[in-house]
């Protein structure tokens, strides 16, 4: 039986209540940490576990914590990034809705390790009903003495609050999130300085994703070695993969990193194959921003090795023939899907969500959407395909935050792998997939 860290008890009735969660062993890691572990030893344990940020960037969590300015006499802040908005990604909602106490338990551990006395869960405003579930769980944790003054007589005190966003994908970028939490527009900050030195209210701050934080109790309970024993050399532990699109069983699956993509798509334990017995055409494996791959390259690398769900295997071949694990938003398309139209929805998304600070992104995302709209409608010209690729190239890497890259990669990869489909739209002067 594969180890489950995040979904082990997810189907237990009443898991969102303190009593049920506690009965299943909840908050044991907080007891252990506050009684017998120093903040530094928790950071060391997280570093040793090999846990990497599950929001999409995959940065080692323990390393991020180590950057915090320990000498600063300013307050330290720990923030949970619950701005889940990357198209194809719907895993954090699952945790927040069904297992809020595991997130709270992780927030207490992270806050204690970082010396934070106040912590915030920033959740996208659309998920207000999840915010209300989490706030109820926070109230229970206060009543039971796991939050507030002098937690379990340890002398450590922590206040935890939820903050709703207002509808802005960009606030998933950590410095934009901090701006938003300060009551401002979600404009990303220029880095450096990084939040670990200058974050919320100019104080040392760490921002981690929901799934990352929900892993912490297990790591403290079972130890870094047990966590690092799961997964592959460079991809430790488990990962939530949210699978959607043209599959028989869309949903959220917890996999041990290193699972073959082919097994994930076709096994009944996971996606259960392509709907209606159709042919697999393409996959966007890690949320809308990662390069799209055609069936042959998502199932096997260019070298002919089986492609695995791990950071390093999905990156095999670079952007020419590979992609990224990203957030684990796994979007599957069968042979009936129009790659150009799907790309157009992504281009419209990034245009809508660009904060407007950097010219390449502000102007480029709108320009790409316009061209794609023309091509998709059968009114494009051949030279516009190269123009599109050229615009994407000039957005990639030229902006303050990664939204520019995220907008460029889907475009350049779709042209790289599905150029003939763009050409078909232009030759036929219509979308070849419309009936």
């Amino acid at each position, binding site marked *: 039986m594969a180890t489950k860290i995040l979904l082990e008890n997810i189907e237990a009735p009443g898991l969102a209540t303190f009593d049920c969660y506690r009965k299943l062993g909840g908050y044991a890691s907080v007891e252990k940490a506050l009684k017998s572990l120093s903040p530094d030893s928790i950071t060391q344990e997280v570093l040793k576990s090999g846990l990497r940020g599950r929001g999409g960037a995959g940065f080692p969590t323990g390393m991020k914590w180590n950057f915090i300015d320990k000498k600063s006499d300013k307050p330290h802040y720990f923030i949970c990034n619950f701005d889940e*908005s990357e198209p194809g990604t719907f895993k954090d909602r699952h945790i927040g809705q069904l297992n809020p106490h595991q997130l709270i338990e992780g927030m207490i551990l992270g806050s204690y390790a970082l010396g934070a006395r106040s912590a915030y869960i920033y959740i996208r405003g659309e998920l207000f009903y999840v915010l*209300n579930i989490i706030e109820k769980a926070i109230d229970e944790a206060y009543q039971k003495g796991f939050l507030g003054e002098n937690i379990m007589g340890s002398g450590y005190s922590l*206040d935890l609050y939820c903050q709703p966003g207002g509808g802005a*994908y960009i606030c998933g970028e950590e410095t934009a999130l901090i701006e938003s*939490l300060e009551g401002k*527009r979600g404009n990303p900050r220029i880095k450096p300085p990084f939040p670990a030195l200058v974050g919320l209210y100019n104080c040392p701050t760490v921002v981690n994703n929901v799934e990352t934080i929900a892993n912490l109790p297990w790591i403290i309970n079972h130890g870094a070695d047990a966590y690092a024993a799961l997964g592959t050399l460079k991809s430790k532990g488990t990962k939530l993969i949210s699978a*959607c699109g043209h599959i028989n069983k869309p949903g959220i699956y917890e996999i041990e990193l290193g699972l073959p993509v082919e097994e994930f798509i076709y096994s009944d334990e996971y996606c259960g194959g392509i709907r209606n017995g159709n042919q697999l055409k393409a996959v966007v494996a890690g949320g809308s921003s990662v390069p799209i791959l055609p069936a042959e390259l998502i199932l096997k690398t260019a070298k002919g090795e089986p492609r695995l769900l791990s950071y390093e295997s999905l990156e095999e071949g670079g952007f020419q023939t590979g992609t990224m694990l990203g957030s684990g938003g796994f979007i599957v398309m069968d042979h009936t899907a129009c790659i150009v139209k799907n790309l157009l929805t992504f281009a419209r998304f990034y245009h809508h969500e660009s904060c407007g600070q950097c010219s390449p992104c502000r102007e480029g995302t709108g320009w790409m959407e316009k061209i794609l709209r023309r091509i998709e409608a059968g009114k494009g010209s051949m030279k516009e395909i190269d123009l599109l690729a050229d615009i994407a190239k000039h957005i990639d890497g030229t902006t303050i935050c990664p939204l520019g890259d995220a907008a460029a990669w889907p475009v350049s990869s779709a042209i790289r792998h599905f150029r003939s489909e763009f050409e078909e739209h232009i030759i036929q002067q219509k979308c070849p997939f419309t009936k």
Partner: protein
Amino acid sequence: MQNEHTTIEFPPETLALVNRIIKRYPEGRQKSALLPLLHIAQSENKGWLSTEMMDYVAILLDIQPIEVYEVASFYSMFNLEPVGNCLIEVCQTGPCWLCGAEEILAHFEKRLGIKSGETTADGRFSLKTVECLAACGNAPVIQVGTDYHENLNIQKVDELLDTWQAENKNSHSNPYL
């Protein structure tokens, strides 16, 4: 809280909620409460933020009105024009599109006799397209108030609309309560 610019005043229980929220932030950082307050203010004003309402929020937080306007205009959940009693938000991004979101939108448009971005003549319904709601596994998805409606098909849309029409649905209740 009395003020000279506006006649708006939240009822006591809403003001109590506002004050509880402001206390979540350090002294002098009350501006952090702006997004929560805009959600509340919008619910107190039939689902949209008038200039007068935003000025009132500025007074509650002791900040300049421009600091409220620039934020309200940045985030997609805040409506700066009046909307119908029931605001229907239809996701259109990739995964929902792959699973038939265009047909869902077209059916809402047909049943309500309006296009996306419009309000019915009787003021009861507004229709709006939105970007990814992070529920892609249950596509197509719509949001109404704080409720998600998932795995939609034409029949479910009909059932929802019948219910909302019969009960005169209002989607603008205070999201915290």
